């Protein structure tokens, strides 16, 4: 066996009731390399990660760490053996200090009492290489998402890992924070610590990874050196078919204004936001995380309060007392966090889809079961949602399919305007492409679409016109050929005050 190999996974099988998630997967990670793992949702990435980090036990197969065979009974074993994990949904305790999180379970003690001086000093040492402003005494809830991630990385490294697994690390970071993360990862590599990097964003993978392994349907398709492959061929291997153009064709026609938003203001959140949405075009709302886009849009839909502002739909001024009146007027909002406030996880697909439609679809206050099932099947076909039975609970679906259920929920009320907040967050290339194509179809059929996205390639690829926001204010509006990553970034940075 290659002495340079830090982790070797050999012919691992793992099954769950109803599915065989891993079918004899083998993987080798070299010492000091940044190895990426890609695959569509359901390909087996999470399962493989969970087997490596001790959360799940493989049915068959072996795992070797530095040449020795290992068997992890639980994540603690894996951690002790030197495998660190930085989770997508950060595993920190928000009400507790940074120091107490980093040294959780191994707080320095003096005579049975926590030695805080030593604890903070040790934490400072651990945080030092990250050159961050984070203080050990701070409560984790006071930190930004990017800073919390730094804490989690620091914690993993302080455990003397030989391998650090990163699961979708940039999903909540903006461009500059992501770059800071990449610098940290390169530092990790320079210390001869290996990195397993899981992400849907191929552009990132090509930026920092050395090798890439592609999984599909529980099987390892191939491992390549990054320098010897291209995005397109990776995508083809991931989905098993040629996806063609990554984004659907844009529209060049400019129709009548469907939505007219004027002077939306809310102290400390956003000020004087005005824009139009025209028929036949997809409008994008771009900006850094925290620029106020979600807040504006929720205010426009009557969900959150605002101090000043007017909305008119197709010329008719709308009074926004609550979200219900927005829905009555055909305006709806799709949340950016499907698990938090987008879906009813313990309820069936059918019940999720009819949630907004409930009153309209009910006859004399009874919910017609047959009709709802027909509706669910209609959207299953239309959006290509993969499930076994419409009575299935939504939390058993993959991320991409969950997102599609959330979209179905909105489509079911035949809206006139849909505002989608991060519509493809956390879903794979195949599903992303399906959703982008669907957005264009909806737009062409006369429904107004506004997309909020922190992913520049998505904004540039999908939207016909882009409004850029920064720190609560509109900084530019770009149309047609001006819709490029460079122009968006420069309009943000040219107005940077801080």
């Amino acid at each position, binding site marked *: 066996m290659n002495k340079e190999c830090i982790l070797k996974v050999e012919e691992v099988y793992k099954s769950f009731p109803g599915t065989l998630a891993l079918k004899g997967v083998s993987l080798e990670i070299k010492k000091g390399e940044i190895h990426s793992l890609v695959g569509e949702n359901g390909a087996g990435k999470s399962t493989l990660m969970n087997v490596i980090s001790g959360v799940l036990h493989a049915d068959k197969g072996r795992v070797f760490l530095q040449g020795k065979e290992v068997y992890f009974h639980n994540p603690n074993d894996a951690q002790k053996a030197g495998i660190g994990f930085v989770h997508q949904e950060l595993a920190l305790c928000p009400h507790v200090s940074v120091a107490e999180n980093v040294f959780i379970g191994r707080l320095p003690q003096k005579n049975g009492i926590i030695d805080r001086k030593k604890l903070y000093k040790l934490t400072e040492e651990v945080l030092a290489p990250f050159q961050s402003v984070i203080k050990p005494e701070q409560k984790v809830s006071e930190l930004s998402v990017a800073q919390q991630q730094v804490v989690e990385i620091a914690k993993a490294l302080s455990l003397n890992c030989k391998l650090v697994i990163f699961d979708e690390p940039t999903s909540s970071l903006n461009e500059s924070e992501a770059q800071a993360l990449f610098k940290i990862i390169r530092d990790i590599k320079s210390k001869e610590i290996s990195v397993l990097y899981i992400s849907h964003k191929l552009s990132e993978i090509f930026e920092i990874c050395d090798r890439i392994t592609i999984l599909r349907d529980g099987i390892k398709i191939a491992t390549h050196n990054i320098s010897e492959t291209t995005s397109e061929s990776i995508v083809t291997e991931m989905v098993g078919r040629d996806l063609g153009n990554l984004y659907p064709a844009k529209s060049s026609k400019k129709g009548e204004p469907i939505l007219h938003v004027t002077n939306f203001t809310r102290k400390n959140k956003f000020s004087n936001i005005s824009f139009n949405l025209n028929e036949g075009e997809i409008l994008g709302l771009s900006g850094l995380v925290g620029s106020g886009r979600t807040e504006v849009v929720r205010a426009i839909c009557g969900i959150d309060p605002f101090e000043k502002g007017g909305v008119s739909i197709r010329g008719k001024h709308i009074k926004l007392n609550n979200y219900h009146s927005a829905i009555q007027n055909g305006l709806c909002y799709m949340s950016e966090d499907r698990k938090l*406030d987008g879906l009813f996880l313990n309820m069936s697909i059918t019940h999720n889809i009819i949630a907004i439609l409930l009153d309209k679809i009910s006859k004399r206050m*009874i919910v017609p079961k047959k009709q709802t099932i027909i509706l669910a099947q209609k959207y299953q076909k239309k959006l290509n949602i993969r499930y076994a039975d419409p009575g299935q609970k939504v939390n058993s679906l993959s991320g991409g399919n969950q997102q599609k259920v959330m979209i179905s929920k909105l489509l079911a009320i035949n809206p006139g305007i849909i505002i989608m907040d991060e519509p493809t967050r956390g879903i794979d290339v195949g599903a992303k492409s399906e959703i982008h194509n669907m957005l264009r179809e909806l737009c062409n059929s006369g429904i107004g679409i506004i997309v909020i996205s922190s992913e520049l390639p998505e904004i540039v690829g999908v939207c016909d016109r882009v409004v850029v926001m920064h720190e609560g204010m509109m900084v530019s509006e770009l149309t047609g050929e001006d819709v490029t990553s460079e122009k968006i970034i420069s309009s943000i940075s040219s107005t940077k005050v801080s």
Partner: protein
Amino acid sequence: MKSSQGSIKRVIHGIRGFKESTVILIIILLCTGISISAPIFLSLDNLKTTAIGLACDGIIGIGMTLSLISGGFDLSVGSVMGLSAVLTALFAGMGINIWLAAFLAVAISLIIGLINGILIGKVGLNPFITTLGMMSIARGGVFVLTQGTSLSINNADQSFRFLGSGNLFGIPVIAIIFIVLAILGDFMVRKSSPAMKVFYVGSNEKAAILSGINTGKVKLYVYLFTALMASLAGILSLSRFGVATANMGSGSEMRVISAAVIGGAALAGGEGSVFGTVLGVLLLSIINNALVLFNVSVHWQNLIAGTILILAVTIDLLSHKRKNK
């Protein structure tokens, strides 16, 4: 024996959920076991007594199911039940026609439910603290009104007594009323759109708001309904015993919540059924009945009830875990 158990389970599984079929199975096993050791269990008299005994808890359970589904619960039901009975007896004692007295008592109980609903639904207070406080207030009201004694309705129109102590074709009227309410309640919870909204609110309140549901209004109606059921239970209890005592209804909230959880309601909300709660009430009653038949001291009842609850919840959690791993 084993194979017939298996096929029964399969049949029931086809009709209802996993949880409910488990409870049905346990009930069948228990009944079989008890009737072998104490054949008097299956006597008409004993069954009637059991049915009458569980009717009030069952009616309260219909309301409690809904409040559990909404993600909360109502600890004040026992006190509202007592207050309702006491107010009816009080008004009747003042010369008011007893049927009117009952109507007034229900109306006042609805006000309590309204206050619960406003505090929990509109103001946003925690259901535990709110209904706990209301439990004390209502029970306090009962003590004040009764001065610790019992109020009799011997001087009132005795046709009222038919509800609680009469029989129709040999079946106790109170049991019939309970069964009718339970069937209606189960249907409503399973099929009606207002009840569906309660499921959404209990499952994920934030998502319910983003689905255009007025969550404050939904919760308000839930607590109104729970108070209504508790109030009806109180009136039927008064009709059954002919007296309203200061301790009437005491402890029923714990029994009913246990029954609901045994029957499949989740404390976190978003799950539950009236049928399941009824099964839970039935199970607890049968166990109680068994204790009586086997001459077990009354003092053991609490201990056993508590043990059953913990067992039920543990079994439920383990079976969920196994399903998901």
